């Protein structure tokens, strides 16, 4: 009897012990996370990874600004790369030496604004999806080839978009097309030439186009995720950069003929009647996801954009303001009739009185957003962009009148003032180029496009119009450095930023861009 009891008790003990502790003592997997081998199993996990790509683009900055460990956020870099070497911005109270160096054309490889890390971080997210998502077809029977294709199209497109920014900003860049899944896979890679990066971008976008959806069924997803129209638009931009005008027009037409996009009504002016759409700013910029939006980075209450602290006139840390002469030079002002104004000027792009970059800061035409309202979207592409890209390509292919018609459409929508109108002949290619450039400056003011627009026009036909860049820098550089800045701009290698010093130290195969030696 006693022995039985002992045996029974010991069995029980063994049973209990076997059920709970033992196994986990020998298990090395993390208990609070999930590992690669267990992750890529279901279609929900694929979807989570794809959404993660978009989320990675909205990652906040890390480290404190000014310190060497600072990593900027993606949209901060999009703004800085696209605007701060151009003529629409000026230094503010908290502008750092690195920021001023951009304005002065005095950029060194130590400049924190040349840090490309947020871009390659997103590229790695894309690469991971492209590499691992196809494996899920085997493990999840409910996951279809069509669904996989859709997800792949998103990853391919975002990767192409990231490389497009990199190649325009740095020229030759290292091209990483496979995923870095563990530390062992970190290998130094050399730079690839601009041309080969652009070829890869086109190939990726072409492939993505065949796999992409036309709609996700809801507006927020259609504007915030990649659709076939996003791909067409990016392709148009890439072709324009590569001087392939007919291909550009084809891609623009695909978007235009879809009938899914339009311009938000701005102004209907027929003196003496001045009729402005009061909700234009609210629809297009404050809320975002309008009928005009093609691809936007959708910041929200949960994920605020980084702009409040660097643009707002109510904080002491603001780094950038609008150029003092922006209203006069770009939009111009009708002093005789205050009803007659460009809807894109004061109270939309800029608040002239405080020089505030208003597109991301304005709640209405006159009141600021509060800190917790700082969720203005970043606009990668709007329909107006497609129209003006087409105009640019038309002009290059000899259809000047077509270009002028499009410019006038854009101007009428916004009631651009007569004092900013040029009257080029349809054959005057140069003047039309300048007209488009000026109209793009008004239309996409502070949307991170100005520098790329000027550079694209300047570099066309082997830098035929380098003067565009030189004139711009004559405006923006400080007077005692104007001549130096211009002379630097005559070196076409100076149009591309240096590789950040940290990258050079960690990737020994990288060679610094020639201008910065």
């Amino acid at each position, binding site marked *: 009897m006693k022995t039985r009891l002992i045996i029974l008790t010991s069995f029980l003990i063994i049973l209990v012990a076997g059920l709970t502790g033992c196994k986990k003592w020998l298990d090395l997997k993390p208990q609070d996370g999930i590992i690669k081998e267990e992750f890529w199993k279901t279609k929900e996990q694929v979807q989570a990874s794809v959404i993660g790509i978009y989320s990675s683009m909205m990652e906040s900055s890390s480290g404190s600004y000014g310190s060497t460990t600072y990593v900027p956020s993606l949209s901060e870099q999009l703004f800085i790369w696209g605007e701060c070497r151009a003529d629409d911005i000026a230094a503010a109270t908290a502008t750092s030496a690195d920021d001023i160096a951009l304005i002065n054309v005095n950029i060194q490889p130590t400049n924190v604004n040349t840090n490309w890390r947020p871009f390659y971080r997103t590229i790695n997210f894309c690469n991971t999806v492209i590499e691992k998502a196809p494996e899920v077809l085997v493990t999840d029977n409910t996951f279809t080839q069509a669904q996989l294709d859709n997800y792949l199209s998103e990853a391919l497109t975002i990767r192409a978009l990231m490389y497009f920014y990199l190649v325009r900003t740095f020229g030759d860049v290292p091209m990483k097309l496979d995923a870095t899944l563990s530390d062992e896979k970190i290998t130094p890679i050399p730079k690839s030439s601009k041309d080969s990066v652009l070829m890869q971008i086109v190939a990726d976008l072409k492939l993505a186009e065949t796999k992409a959806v036309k709609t996700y069924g809801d507006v927020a997803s259609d504007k915030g995720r990649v659709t076939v129209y996003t791909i067409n638009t990016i392709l148009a931009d890439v072709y324009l950069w590569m001087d392939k005008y007919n291909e550009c027009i084809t891609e623009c037409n695909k978007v235009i003929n879809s009938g899914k996009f339009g311009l938000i009504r701005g102004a209907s002016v027929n003196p003496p009647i001045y009729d402005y759409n009061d909700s234009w700013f609210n629809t297009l910029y404050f809320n975002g996801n309008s009928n005009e939006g093609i691809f936007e980075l959708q910041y929200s209450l949960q994920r605020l954009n980084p702009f409040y602290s660097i643009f707002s006139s109510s904080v002491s840390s603001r780094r950038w303001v609008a150029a003092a002469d922006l209203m006069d030079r770009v939009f111009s002002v009708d002093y005789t009739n205050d009803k007659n104004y460009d809807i894109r000027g004061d109270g939309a792009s800029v608040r002239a009185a405080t020089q505030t970059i208003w597109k991301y800061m304005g709640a209405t035409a006159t009141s600021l957003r509060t800190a917790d309202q700082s969720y203005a979207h970043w606009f990668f592409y709007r329909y107006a962009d497609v129209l003006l890209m087409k105009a640019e390509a038309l002009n290059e292919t000899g259809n000047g009148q077509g270009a002028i018609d499009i410019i006038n459409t854009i101007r009428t929508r916004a009631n651009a003032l007569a004092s900013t109108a040029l009257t080029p002949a349809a054959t005057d290619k140069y003047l039309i180029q300048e007209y488009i450039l000026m109209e793009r400056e008004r239309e996409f003011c502070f949307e991170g496009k100005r520098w790329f627009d000027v550079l694209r026009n300047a570099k066309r036909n082997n830098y035929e119009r380098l003067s565009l860049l030189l004139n711009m820098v004559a405006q923006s550089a400080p007077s005692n450095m104007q001549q*130096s800045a211009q002379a630097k701009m005559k070196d076409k290698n100076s149009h591309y930023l240096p590789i950040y010093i940290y990258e050079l130290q960690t990737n020994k195969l990288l060679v610094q861009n020639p201008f910065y030696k």
Partner: protein
Amino acid sequence: MKRKLFIIAGIISIYLASVVTPGCKKINIVETTTTDVNIVGYLDKHLDSFSLFRQILERTGTAAFLNAYGAYTCFAPTNSGVTTYLKNIGASSVDAADINVLKDMVRLHLLGDTLYTSSFTDGKMPVITMYGQYLVTSVVNKAGISSYQINRQATVLNSNVKVGNGIIHVIDNVMTPATKTISQQLEANSNYSIFVQAMKETGYFDKLNVVNSDTSKRWITVLAENNQALADSGFTSYAALKAKYCKTGNPALANDSLNMYVAYHISQGLKFLGDIISTPTHETWLPQEVISVKLIDQDVVINQDEFNGVLEIGVKLDRTKSDNAATNGVWHDARAHFMVKYRKPTALYWDVSSFDEIKKLPAYYKKANYDFKRATEADNPIKDQYWGWGPLASTNTLSYVYSSASSITNYAYNNDVNMLPMGLPNRPIWWELRTPPIVKGKYKVWVCYRAQKQSSSSNMLCQVEVNGTLMQRTMNFTENRPSGTDAELEAIGWKRYTENTTNVFAARQVGVIEFTTTKQQIVRITPLNGTQNNNNLDMIHFIPIDQDQVLPRFRPDGTLIYQ
């Protein structure tokens, strides 16, 4: 025996221990904290490029201190540059060259501070070389490649090399110091013969031909007119120039116009074009006369100014022919003839509420109120109006007040005033305004305001300073104009400046000021007693003392009444 054995064994064991045990090996202790080399160390590491320069440093005795602790900038010429240089000075080798020439050369290549390329401008470097001449920086583009150029003599091949005791910029040529004075350089150039003749006759040639040992007085900047520029204005010979200007018969006299003409082209200080355009006006050797400078597109233009609404076209400086460094300064080439203008003192009736920033807001200018807020002390929303930061942040707002109906502005000039809270302990502590250019002369200063009390006990007694000179009388933003005839009022320093006769629109004569220079002047209003928000400033009048002080008066619609 046993003991001997024991001793031998002991010795052997000690010997063995010392040989075998590892502890006795010398440990290599790193005593340096860094492996960075100094300037000389860097040259030693790259002898294939710098062996000759290294040799020069050795021979001139500079190598030792460049290898010690310090903060230097060194422009290191490569071997090919040094070879060319040696050939130019006629030396077959470093050892054959004159040691004093080499010493001067080395000193010109050394700065006692670290300067990165980010501080290079279109003008001189911020720090002087050890030789005692400034280096000029610029950027040139050769065959599509842009690089920094130093002193227009050497191109930077490799910049910002950081070493233990400073920075090295590698250059392709040796730079040589200027050897001629401004006078000698101009004399050597036949294009300036008329101007040089004028310099000689007026005595300035000799003054510009010396290198003052006092570096604070040494540097001079000259804007020379070439013969073509003079010919364009009808002076084909020195005789013509002299006939026009020399009225006393002796150009050496300071009050002779020809003497003044030359003096007006000379300015104290070393000012390359990049430095000239950093400051809006430069004083000349002609007492109290300034040259104004503007950068218009890419042209440096002097004396382009607007007086009483009339734009006077200025003279361009020729960029390619300017920035000529000499031992005692720099000279530039003016593309046209210019001479100091004698203007009669003219009254300025300054409407302080029509400033550029409000004019850019057509929805508000002459339409509605607008607040210019300063969120932080560093903000400066209005270029020409500024104020001492009020301790209470919310008081730092300058309001543009407009209304044709409100009793505050209904009779004000243009129906608008500027309002700024002032007074300790909370509000802004002074208000500073920069006037449009005022011609030099003696003026009476009138502050025209709309009197208002924020509350019945408010007081706002202020003193006024013009260019830092305290005005003789105080004024008070809460004080109404006394009654009396124009003559009675003027006698006690008051006037009615509006068409309407209501006594809340008052003009107070705060004093008399003599402007010695024609330029923008600074007015500062400082509260002495009291504090309130409603300080409504409408205009400030500067009226030459010999002119009518009372008329004209000003209407709300912007027109003037002269009788």
